[in-house]
């Protein structure tokens, strides 16, 4: 195990402490600098207003909203329930399948629709493939943030293969409109199962390669271990979720703890950070949780592919959706980045009265000022990268 780096204990230099060779005291002061909105390592249009004392961050104020596209307003005013799905796609565009699923699931629970078993299996396969694709982006860009360029390219080669699978299923590579309320838009194509199994066989050694190349690389470990520690209590208080929460050592996964679909029938283990390279809840822990979750996702897909039942995937799709007046529901699912919840209120008409999307990236980002205080400026890039935000979902 690597030793944690020794940090200077006295960070702050008080005004009047620095003296020149002639004995004159120099004036020091805090400085406000601006990072973003156009900055490669903010992963989108995020502006961070940072108060620094030398290299040390005293305060960090995120400014968001540059990508606000009025998701909730559109849901109320311009759409039927079915038409919300493409808008939900565009929230977290790196993980569109899980967004669609969350909304469809909420509506199915509200309308008490029983979905055919084949649909549940297909959805699990798609969501887990999507989770791998999304984690690959997170890992690749996190590598870039820490100064490693090659893993990014490897990650995108592998992601491409998943996008090919999506493309052969529904024709789209990024925004699918695949999971509908009550079913899915297309059945799996004939060669899908074969190709998905080929992908699993191909991808297992690639995870090991990525671990060798990045996760256990000494430079990477020194760069990320003990950086940006998010303690367990703070994480829960800020309702952080997903790999970030599990990285802080909290054994919590909605697929197991608030079960939906067929996850209770499948064998897999939630992965948590243990502080192997430094402190529990540091950037390295968040990274390794994502790496290990990809393996678990492969296990899930393998089991689901082996026991895929027959059935009509469009059997339960309702033609007309009119929920009861004043029906309301909050449904949460484990998306790639954490808890994605939809709070839907109906007024008995064909379009929702109110839709509130509780995006994981929005909530996970709100804890950034807590982590960033006391860190170095160069580490802020890493901390923001390890949170894995998608601004499309933060701003909606």
């Amino acid at each position, binding site marked *: 195990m690597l030793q944690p780096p020794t940090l200077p204990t006295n960070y702050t230099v008080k005004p009047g402490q620095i003296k020149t060779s002639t004995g004159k005291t120099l004036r020091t002061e805090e400085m406000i600098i601006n990072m973003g909105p156009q900055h490669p390592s903010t992963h989108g249009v995020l502006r961070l207003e940072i108060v620094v004392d030398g290299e040390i961050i005293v305060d960090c104020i995120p400014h968001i909203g540059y990508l606000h596209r009025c998701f909730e307003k559109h849901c109320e005013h311009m759409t039927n329930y079915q038409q919300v799905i493409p808008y939900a796609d565009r929230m977290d565009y790196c993980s569109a399948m899980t967004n669609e699923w969350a909304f469809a699931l909420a509506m199915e629970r509200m309308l008490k629709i029983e979905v055919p078993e084949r649909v549940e299996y297909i959805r699990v396969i798609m969501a887990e493939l999507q989770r791998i694709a999304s984690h690959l982006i997170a890992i690749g860009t996190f590598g870039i943030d820490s100064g490693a360029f090659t893993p990014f390219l490897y990650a995108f080669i592998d992601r491409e293969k998943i996008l090919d699978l999506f493309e052969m299923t529904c024709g789209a590579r990024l925004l699918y409109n695949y999971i509908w309320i009550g079913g899915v838009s297309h059945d799996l194509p004939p060669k899908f199962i074969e190709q998905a199994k080929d992908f699993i066989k191909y991808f297992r050694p690639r995870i090991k390669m990525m671990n060798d190349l990045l996760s256990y690389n000494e430079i990477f470990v020194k760069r990320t271990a003990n950086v940006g520690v998010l303690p367990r209590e703070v994480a829960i208080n*800020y309702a952080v979720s997903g790999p970030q929460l599990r990285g802080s050592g909290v054994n919590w996964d909605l697929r197991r703890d608030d079960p939906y679909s067929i996850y209770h029938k499948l064998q897999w283990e939630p992965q948590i950070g243990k502080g192997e390279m430094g402190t529990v809840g540091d950037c390295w822990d968040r990274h390794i949780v994502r790496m290990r979750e990809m393996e678990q996702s492969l296990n899930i897909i393998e089991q689901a592919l082996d026991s895929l039942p027959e059935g009509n995937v469009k059997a339960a799709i309702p033609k007309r959706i009119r929920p009861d007046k004043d029906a309301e529901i909050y449904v949460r699912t484990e998306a790639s980045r954490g808890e994605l919840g939809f709070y839907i209120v109906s007024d008995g008409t064909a379009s929702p009265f109110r839709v509130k999307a509780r995006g994981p990236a929005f909530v996970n980002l*709100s804890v950034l000022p807590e982590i960033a205080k006391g860190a170095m400026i160069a580490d802020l890039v890493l901390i923001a990268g390890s949170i894995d935000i998608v601004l499309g979902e933060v701003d909606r």
Partner: protein
Amino acid sequence: MTPQEILDILKTKFGEAIVESKQDVQQPWICITPDKTKEICLFLRDEASLQFDYLSCLSGMDYGNGNFGVVYHLFSMVHKHKIVIKTFCAKDNLQVHSVSSVWGTANWHEREAFDLFGIIFDEHPDLRRILLPDDWEGNPLRKDYKVQEFYHGMRVPE
């Protein structure tokens, strides 16, 4: 713990502050007065038998005709139970006590409700707009919202 038991505990502790509740719906909810939200939420978080440590979602609501509200979806990671708390307020007195000192996550959610609905959260540490520009007019998710015609000389599309 079932929602009915949670309701009973809250009623014995706070009495008048519990306005109404509905138990025969998909997700039972309890309605409390807007000036007591912080007190009751602090109790919900710290009481050993409840321990609602996870504020999953906080949503502003406009029910039309000048009726507004805030909905809290609470979960307990320890006991694995859940409850929905609601509070209602009228358009001429849109004041709800902030719970961001109870759960840190409420900070941004409350700013969003302030931004899109204009609900004022008392004792919020940093009540600013979050998604819209600071100089935007009106609160877009209100049912009577009219979009402004121009923004910095640019015509705003309908």
